[in-house]
């Protein structure tokens, strides 16, 4: 039987990660071109710690989603629209894994190991390699631009469903609309 609602956990994870990802994106955007200072070193560390946290959360979120099927898309959507919606969600999940992974690899290649909260060293998956570090920086940046575009599309689609189609696609993801 198809669910009609998201679980409260799925809704909580959605908004928690939305806030964390937007915050982390803004921090990354701000800090990247700062001149070197203690503040910059702190911001980079905090960005990495938050990135590790999101990377852990996305595993929990994917696990939850596999165990709790989301409600179906509305019947009025054409097949192509449904395909685009699913492809968009798949892209969001892919990026939620790929972006922290690219940041982790970039840190290793740049020779600055990620130490979670300054206490727990995350293993370096790559040797220090300046050229590779610069390449991964570009990859991390490019993936983030793709994420920004996909998130904007995601939000625009939700608003279109709410204001033009007048269906429940947006409202069913709002807090207090979940199944307990």
């Amino acid at each position, binding site marked *: 039987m198809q669910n009609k609602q998201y679980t409260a956990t799925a809704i909580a994870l959605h908004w928690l990660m939305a806030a964390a990802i937007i915050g982390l994106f803004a921090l990354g955007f701000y800090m990247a071109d700062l001149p070197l200072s203690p503040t910059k*070193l702190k911001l980079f*560390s905090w960005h990495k710690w938050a990135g590790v946290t999101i990377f852990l959360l996305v595993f929990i979120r994917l696990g939850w989603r596999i165990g709790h099927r989301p409600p179906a898309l509305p019947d009025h959507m054409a097949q192509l629209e449904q395909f685009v919606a699913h492809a968009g969600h798949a892209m969001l999940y892919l990026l939620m894994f790929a972006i922290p992974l690219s940041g982790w690899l970039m840190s290793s290649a740049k020779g600055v190991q990620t*130490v979670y909260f300054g206490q727990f060293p995350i293993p370096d998956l790559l040797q220090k390699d300046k050229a590779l570090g610069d390449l991964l920086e570009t990859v991390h940046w490019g993936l983030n631009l793709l994420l920004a575009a996909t998130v904007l599309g995601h939000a625009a689609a939700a608003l279109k469903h709410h204001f033009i189609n007048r269906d429940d696609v947006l409202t069913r993801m709002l807090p207090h609309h979940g199944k307990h």
Partner: protein
Amino acid sequence: MTIKKIIPTLIAVTALSFPFVSQAVEFKTVQADKSALTFAYKQMGVGMEGKFKKFAVQLSFDPAKLAAAKASMEVDLASIDTGSAEADDEVAGKQWFNTKVFPAARFVSSGVKSLGGNRYEVAGQLTIKGRSQPVAATTTVTMQGNNATFDGAFVLKRADFGIGEGPWADFGTVANEIQIKFHLLATSGK
């Protein structure tokens, strides 16, 4: 006594029996291309490493004449390699090494004493940015024919030398303790 303990004892006894025959070799010429000067420190809890590419060492070491042993080193501070060009530029600046005014760091030994076996303590004065502090490096000397390697390390506190002033003076981002390690290859002869 185990075999492992007997062998060094035998070597020591043998060496002492022939003080004028053994170890009558002085190591003086340091091969720059086979030597290294590196440093390690913590930044936001992360272990970081770097090196100095240019440094000159004057050395005179005969294990049989420790009282006459001498070492001095001059380090071209602008030759630092921190791993990032941005950081290399930063540490050349006034708040760090101020290399325009103080281009070199200098170490001059005041004495060498044996710590037993092939380990020695090299004490001396380290001068950086116009400030001098006593330091002592525990050094392991490995002799092989005409070559000897000197591997040593000591910890300096960057605040003692004013390395990293102003906003950098806080040890929360860059730790105060900097471990300095050297690996020198010297050959015997005049």
